[in-house]
């Protein structure tokens, strides 16, 4: 196909570019931020972390205990940096008034006639005719180029200390069954609505479509009341994983059925009749023909429902406790926001962890996603 350059295509390309940038930028920023050192994160934006940055630091030389004597001259030698992070010193100073008085390698002459030289990698040599008397070393002000530095410490802290790891597992324990259960139920349901004749079928279908417009917030409290009553009756915990699975199943039932019904009725009628003539019962037809052909629809509905459950906060807050063993990721993030509001490294890392699964699902199943959105437009 030849690419045509006209105004509307340029416009749509630009619009696409705009949305891509709009979406990529914060995601990328979050990713970078989550790997940055927490001290750097606090003072500079993520976009500065990809290039060398100039930092000004104060270090202290060693004191008199470390001095050595060679040919009647006293030396203190060492390295200003406690650990090598690849920083390169550009200039240094010996007083706070003038922190880049000397270039690297230059000799700084102090009041007591001693001389200090600082090298690029932080090595220094302090030379004096007289014995050093001070126990504490001298303060050296340096200006250095610092290379990008990234760390996994944030993830270690968030996953294992702040408890986000457990919340992550909890969310998987909620989202997988809450996606698979409605998918299984609704595929049977959609098949019967599409290919079986029974009394009240059309009314049932109309009811399902009508219930799509009912906001789920309306039903939260009544359902929770029922759960509480049931819990009290059988003396079990009202808030539990099976409870939230059922809740999500219920909330997803209408849309999942509708989408599947929409897909299944696009399957060619004659093919199913051929199966009937071949001797297939409804169950055979469903299992051997309709399900294999509905895989794209299942995949796209799986994505939609899974992402919805994954990102859900409200249902999780209502139907699950805040124990570490039950709390879901979104609720945990909200909790962290309250208690670690200042600690950006925790929040950015936590946010990115919660994004990983949707991102993974989206990228690995995107061909199904696109196929699912146009499901039914082309006959199979």
């Amino acid at each position, binding site marked *: 196909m030849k690419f045509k350059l006209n105004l509307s295509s340029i416009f749509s390309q630009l619009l696409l570019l705009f949305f891509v940038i709009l979406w990529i930028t914060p995601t990328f920023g979050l990713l970078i931020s989550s790997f940055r050192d927490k001290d750097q994160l606090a003072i500079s934006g993520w976009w500065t972390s990809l290039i060398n940055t100039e930092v000004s630091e104060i270090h202290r030389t060693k004191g008199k205990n470390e001095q050595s004597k060679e040919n009647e001259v006293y030396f203190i030698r060492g390295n200003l940096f406690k650990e090598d992070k690849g920083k390169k010193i550009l200039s240094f100073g010996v007083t706070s008034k003038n922190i880049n008085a000397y270039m690297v390698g230059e000799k700084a002459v102090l009041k007591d006639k001693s001389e200090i030289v600082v090298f690029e990698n932080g090595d220094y040599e302090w030379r004096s005719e007289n014995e050093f008397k001070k126990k504490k070393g001298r303060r050296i002000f340096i200006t250095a180029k610092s290379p990008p530095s990234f760390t996994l410490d944030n993830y270690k802290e968030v996953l294992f200390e702040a408890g986000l790891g457990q919340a992550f597992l909890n969310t998987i324990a909620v989202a997988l069954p809450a996606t698979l259960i409605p998918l299984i139920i609704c595929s049977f349901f959609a098949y019967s609505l599409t290919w079986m004749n029974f009394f009240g079928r059309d009314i049932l279908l109309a009811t399902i479509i009508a219930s799509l417009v009912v906001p789920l917030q309306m039903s939260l409290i009544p359902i929770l009341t029922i759960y509480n009553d049931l819990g009290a009756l059988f003396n079990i915990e009202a808030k539990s994983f099976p409870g939230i699975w059922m809740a999500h199943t219920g909330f997803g039932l209408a849309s999942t059925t509708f989408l599947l019904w929409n897909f299944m009725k696009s399957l060619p009628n004659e*093919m199913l*009749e*051929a*199966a009937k*003539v071949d001797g*297939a019962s409804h169950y055979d037809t469903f299992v051997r023909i309709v399900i*294999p*052909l509905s895989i794209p629809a299942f995949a796209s509905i799986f994505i939609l429902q899974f992402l919805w459950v994954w990102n859900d906060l409200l249902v999780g807050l209502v139907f699950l406790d805040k124990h570490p063993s039950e709390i879901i990721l979104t609720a945990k993030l909200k909790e962290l926001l309250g208690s670690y509001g200042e600690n950006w490294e925790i929040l950015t890392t936590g946010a990115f962890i919660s994004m990983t699964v949707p991102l993974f699902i989206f990228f690995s199943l995107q061909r199904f996603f696109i196929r699912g959105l146009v499901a039914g437009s082309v006959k*199979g």
Partner: protein
Amino acid sequence: MAEIQINSLNKSFGKSRVIKNVSLCIKSRSFTVIVGPSGCGKSTLLRMIAGLEKIDSGEIKIAGKSVNDLPPKDRDIAMVFQSYALYPHMTVFNNMAFGLKLEKKSKIEIKERVKEAARILQIESLLDRKPKQLSGGQKQRVAIGRAITRNPKVFLFDEPLSNLDAALRVATRIELANLHDSMPDATMVYVTHDQVEAMTLANQIIVLSEGQIEQIGSPLELYEKPQNLFVAKFIGSPAMNIIPIEIFTKGINSFGKIGEKLKISLETNFNSSDMGREIYLGFRPENLILSKKDENSFSARVSFVESLGEYALVYASVEGSSSDHDIIAKVLGTPKISKGDQVSFQIQKGKMHLFDEEGKRYVNGKKQV
């Protein structure tokens, strides 16, 4: 041995009656074609035989057994659909084996029967392919193969050739005819709107129109003795010429009047009570011959000529008629006629068809009952 007996069958979709009190018999081992214009109920009739449509009233018997309440699989039938209706996610082998697998046949038997069907249809090399890797003709063969493997008593074909292109249609038509010869025990019922398919394949044709049977007979019977105007117009291409005619004289060899001036011998005996009645005269284009002007000829003005080399189709309007071309003549060779010419036509002896006001055929001045 599987005769299909249908007794006063009725079917309605909502308010529209699709099948109106149809009774017929499809003989065992016959190749019966149900033909009719689209919307005449022919597919519905076939689907009722297959068990895909419920029967409102009446009875269908296959091999003497009423199948009204039997599901398709218990009727000992197989059906080939217009859209092939293959299972797109299965290989050709699995498509053909699907019915046998559901019957829980042994693997060896399934393999043998699929191989045998594939051999008959010459699709052995395609068994591992998926339907989307096949051409239209190959798909249709697989669909037929799927029917063969089940080894049914009755084959039902629902316009199986209409999705194929013209050349392939002719080739597949011949193969279908051969298939029937190679399976002499099978009864085949074939639905089509294409009268050429009907004429070439069938040994029995059922013409259906608006849910009613117009005529049942062999292809030649339908061609030579159409029982009514509908069949007369439907069978044959180009269609039979039909012109209204007024009975003018009585007795043996009565004359009819076309328009104001023309008189034509009707080769039929009419009574005096028939005088002045408006009836229809039908004759096939190939039964018109160019002739000299005499008492048996009538003249017409040529409106245009389609010359096809082997023969020419001459469109003409009968003298005194207002219409532009009410008759077509099929003249062999390349006649030297051009637009605007006045020519004389004669109808070959014994090739006239007369129909009364209601469209029923006359034989020797008597209406056919």
